[in-house]
């Protein structure tokens, strides 16, 4: 637990959290957890790294944080394995909630990352800085990750670590 800080008039507690989001069963949706595992190993306990399957859990998880880094599979039409970094915190413009409203995986009751970000924004609990490290998926079918996405785990982990380095947190092990 870090000291209480004040960021632009908002009192926040705690440093940051890294979240690997997605289902380990659903093909490339497992990439969030895989990247989180890689980052967790290399950070040696300096930062909180967790995995979650349920995006609604993010809203409480990152409550009070100054920053959250969320790794998730995305479907944006790019080449599978492409890593994108998107800023989505309270200081960033809103995400298009069409993605929450009209796409994604998991059925009627599922709730997407974009929905979690925008719901937290509406509730006033969105951290000032939310970094989404998105890995373009090739498949969400039950089974293993695609070769392209498996091959991008290192690049996605590097994107997370670059953000952590910006915060002054460096890896403790070699890549």
């Amino acid at each position, binding site marked *: 637990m870090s000291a209480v800080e004040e960021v632009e008039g908002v009192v926040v507690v705690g440093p940051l959290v890294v979240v690997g989001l997605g289902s380990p069963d659903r093909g490339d949706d497992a990439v969030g957890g895989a990247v989180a595992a890689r980052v967790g190993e290399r950070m040696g306990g300096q930062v909180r790294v967790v995995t979650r399957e349920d995006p*609604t*859990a993010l809203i409480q998880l990152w409550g009070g944080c100054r920053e959250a880094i969320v790794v998730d599979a995305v479907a944006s039409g790019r080449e599978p394995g492409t890593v994108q970094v998107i800023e989505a915190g309270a200081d960033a413009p809103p995400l298009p909630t069409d993605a929450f409203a*009209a796409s994604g995986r998991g059925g009627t009751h599922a709730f997407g990352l974009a929905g979690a970000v925008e*719901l937290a924004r509406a509730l006033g609990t969105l951290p000032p800085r939310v970094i989404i490290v998105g890995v373009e998926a090739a498949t969400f079918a039950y089974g293993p990750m695609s070769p392209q996405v498996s091959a991008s785990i290192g690049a996605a982990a590097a994107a997370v670590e670059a953000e952590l380095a910006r915060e002054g947190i460096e890896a403790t092990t070699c890549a």
Partner: protein
Amino acid sequence: MTHTLKDGGQVLNVGMLARVEGEGGMHIEIKDRKVVDVQLNIFEPPRFYEGFLRGRHYTEPPDITARICGICPVAYQSASTEAMEVICGVQTTDAIQTMRRLLYCGEWIESHALHIFMLHAPDFLGYDSVLEMAETHGDVVQMALRLKKCGNDLMDTVGGRAIHPVNVRVGGFYRMPALADLMALRPELERGLEDALAAVQLVSTFDFPDMEQDYTYVSLRHPDYYPLERGAEVVASSGVRFPVAEMPLHVEEFHVAHSNALHARFDGEPFFVGPLARYTLNFDQLSPRCQEAALSAGLTETCRNPFKSIIVRTVELAYAFEEALRIIDGWTDGHAPSVPTWPRAGEGVGASEAPRGTIWHRYRVNEAGIIEDAQIVPPTSQNQSSIEMDLRTAAEQWVDLDDHALTHRCEAAIRNYDPCISCATHFLDLRVKRS
């Protein structure tokens, strides 16, 4: 989105409820102020679970069928383990059954909290989504998230995973949770119970359309408790009651052209499973506190207004918290996590009460323990005829509303069922055609 058809009819497209995995739709045709056609179209691609269970080992259905749904996996696990234990001829222990009930409480809490506040309440409060609702009812949404987290944590502690638990097996569990881990959940469960009881009062203040339906209610029933993880028998509001094993004799599935999900009849008629049925057929088994909460919220011991399902669901939410606390308070360490099972040729049925209604599985297994036949009958499939009946009633009752208002009313009528069309559909495209 609204546009006019060539014949002057109107088409309304309603946005989807959440993330998409398939498509479902609703077609309503109105002629001379009368509804001439109602179809709940489920476009979900066939998933062939029953087919690929054939040839699998009898121990596999709990893990395989749990993957059918991320919201009600425990329902599938409970029904499949019970069916297999019937076939194997084994009795589990009271401790195992109690822990199964606790796991199921987690699922009910997760599912009911999500549906009540994030999917259904916006219909009553005049919002299109929980995102809009959060702007003015932030405290309610925060409460919903707290409640849902309780369910996730309970599932994680007992089932090993918040979604698709991995600790369930034929014969019991792979390991029992430690009392210390369960006790650690107690404070949030206590707060959850208080929140849920307050929520009963909150939802009772909503403005409910006046609509009563004469459904045949069907539910599990147990002599000792409100039905969750299993029941001793099946009861119906028609007065029929029979052992779970006879479910296939009473429920007939059939295919209709406009749906990829099988419809069903109970003794030849449409029927209704879910919270309203459970509540009406088992009110006497609710705890005194939940009975009191229900009655003070304006319910009677029976409920036939589908829009008031949100009150019943919230009563069940409170009951799940109460049950979870009761079970944890009575738990001790040292119980065997499972009983041994061995394959035996035979056929068996298992049933449980998923958040949205009775689910039952039937399996036939050979002497080597290989599944030869499987039948999985989820609640939303069984409720399709009732959903269509409600839409017909709603469209006729409120035919004078403009298309926008009628669309909202009809969509709310669908959501009364908390349809797990993912187990089925994720996209509702409501089309009203007037001529």
